């Protein structure tokens, strides 16, 4: 039993981090605020080449052959860097395509040729859709059913998004899906990956506040020497650590097929949601005026956390699911 990443996993994390910091810097991406397509094709292609969409797909299906654990480590970094883009729907859709035996579709997704937006059922066939810029497919999950739709002849009604790097709209998905599965492991995977992204947000905001506490001086000393900020940073670190370790535990439990996999995944999702929202909110406060500016990245984590809290289910759903799940 061990909850720390292996050498190999540390290497994956390192590569992902380096890539996100160089190619997905928020300062650069800020130029695309409010645009339909935030991640251009070249950048998306590069992610595909790095195997990010294929991490948890078996080698025989053309994947890298790792598991949900490594996918979760990727998503932790995606969250930590507030990286926008249809990562979640793409990774999940790859698993759906693999489940369905749709190898051509799977290949197109893994290669970055076709992008997948996320559609959340709102009312009948009406869905809230996100990250649809550049996407020709949409993944819709409802309970244990997951389906991939072709967006080709579908009209999307765009809406103003709380998060300018997460394009938002509504769409009616009336046509037959390209493929569909009834498999609870997809929603379990979604819970863990969203939890990982939220845990990453919790971690990055804790770190951002701590760094600010070391650097910024007021009243002749670093503001992090004042107990008010120091104690808030401590609380943020605890929240992040709890969310991160629980998410990793959940990923391991799902991979091992343990009885408590659902319990652990829902627990991770619930805890990471709260940790991300709390930490992102405090992070703005800790930065004072500068944290309230558009230019600073603090607000990115707030709006992203609000989105992810409502991605692949609502906080209410997950709290209820956790309370209903058998403990072991």
């Amino acid at each position, binding site marked *: 039993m061990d909850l720390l990443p292996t050498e190999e996993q540390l290497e994956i994390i390192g590569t992902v981090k380096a890539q996100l910091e160089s190619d997905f810097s928020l300062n650069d991406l800020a130029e695309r605020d409010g645009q339909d397509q935030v991640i251009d094709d070249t950048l998306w292609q590069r992610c595909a080449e790095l195997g990010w969409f294929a991490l948890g797909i078996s080698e025989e299906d053309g994947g890298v052959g790792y598991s949900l654990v490594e996918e979760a480590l990727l998503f932790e970094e995606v969250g930590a860097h507030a990286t926008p883009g249809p990562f979640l729907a793409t990774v999940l859709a790859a698993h759906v395509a693999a489940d369905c035996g749709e190898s051509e579709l799977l290949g197109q997704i893994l290669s970055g040729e076709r992008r997948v937006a996320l559609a959340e059922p709102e009312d009948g066939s009406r869905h809230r859709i996100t990250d649809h810029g550049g996407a020709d497919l949409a993944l819709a999950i409802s309970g244990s059913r997951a389906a991939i739709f072709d967006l080709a002849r579908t009209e999307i009604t765009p809406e103003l998004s709380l998060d300018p790097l997460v394009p938002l709209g509504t769409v009616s998905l009336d046509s037959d899906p390209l493929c569909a599965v009834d498999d609870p492991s997809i929603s379990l995977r979604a819970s863990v990956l969203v939890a990982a992204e939220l845990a990453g947000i919790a971690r990055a905001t804790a770190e951002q506040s701590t760094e600010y506490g070391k650097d910024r001086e007021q009243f002749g000393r670093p*503001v992090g020497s004042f107990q008010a900020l120091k104690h808030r940073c401590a609380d943020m670190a605890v929240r992040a650590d709890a969310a991160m370790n629980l998410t990793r535990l959940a990923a391991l439990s799902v991979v091992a097929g343990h009885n408590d996999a659902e319990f652990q995944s829902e627990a991770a999702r619930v805890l990471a949601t709260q940790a991300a929202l709390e930490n992102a909110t405090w992070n703005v406060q800790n930065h004072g005026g500068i944290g309230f500016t558009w230019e600073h990245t603090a607000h990115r984590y707030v709006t992203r956390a609000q989105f992810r809290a409502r991605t692949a289910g609502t906080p209410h759903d997950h709290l209820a699911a956790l309370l209903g799940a058998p403990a072991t």
Partner: protein
Amino acid sequence: MNLDLTAEEQAFRDEASTWLAENLPTEERPPEGAEMRAFDLAWQRTLFDGGWAGINWPVEYGGRGLSDIQQMIWYEEFAKADPPFTLNNSCTFVGNNHGGPTLILKGSDEQKTEHLPKILEGETVWCQGFSEPGAGSDLASLSTKAVVDGDELVVTGQKTWTSYAHVADLQELLVRTDPDAPKHKGISWVICDMRSPGIEIREIETMSHVTDFCEVFYDEVRIPLTNVVGEINDGWRVAMSTLSFERGTAFMADQVELAATVERLISEARERTGADGRRPAIADEDIAKRLSMARAEVTALRAMTIAGISRTARTGVPGPEGSMIRLFHGELHQRIYRLAMDIVGTEALRLTPVDGEGVWTGPYLQSFAYTIGGGTTDIQRNIVGERVLGLPRQ
């Protein structure tokens, strides 16, 4: 202890209610630029003509010389009138609530005569020049310097978080006039003409998409020495004397509006389907309890405000207890908009304007400012701990 309105106060309330019904603009406030300025000044002029400008300003300076209770009654009637804009969200705020009152307390006769009428009549827009990038919470460490040269001050430096600088005529500006004195002793409070050569203004966009805040850069800006308010190097005391008024009544309008917001949110929770997709949002006891608590809290805010007014009526000057109201209000305001985010469900992901009817996500983003602006909650807690409770300084 009593809740009675005097006959005069009751008449004032009726009069305000009638006047507002007839004179409140029905159009929304333009969100930016020259139209916004024109709208705000026109409304100020309408108020002045109706006798509602400077309600608690002394009569000799064009005010009505009425009590803080009447000021509060005005805010309450304004909120009741279902206005299409919020009262404090105006470029006339600093003139009415900060620059003006400071001149009344500390200005020379010439300064009063020149500036006060124009504030009340809606002719000038004031802005504040206090905060600096390196002096946020620690305001007294400001470094924008002013050197005396003949009968002028020559100002060089930078201010930030200056609301409405881009549409302002005048600025209440804190500058360091004695770099060698202890940090609180070398500051002066001056009136700066925003059209002076050497001033450059850059808008700051906030996380709530508001661009009313500016950075202001000063490159050898010349300001006549006659524009110093109070004594030179005594600007810290001048600023503090008005900050206590800011804590006293300036934010009363926000508090009154917050109570109306809670009632609107309760209606929203009754009408809107909740997170389970089956019942109204208010049927969720977690939501219901939080709404109920919010109701209790905005009501307590009103009680604290009345108690503050009662105290000021006896002592003449608002005490440091005003910081307790600021602190309570700022955090409550945030809690209420966070609750709204939980009530509106996935609507929480659709961006709305900051101001207006039935909008929640814009104001949610804006609510982050309420525990930062005008002194962070950390600073407010220090003030309450040290000045109200007498706990030892760090």
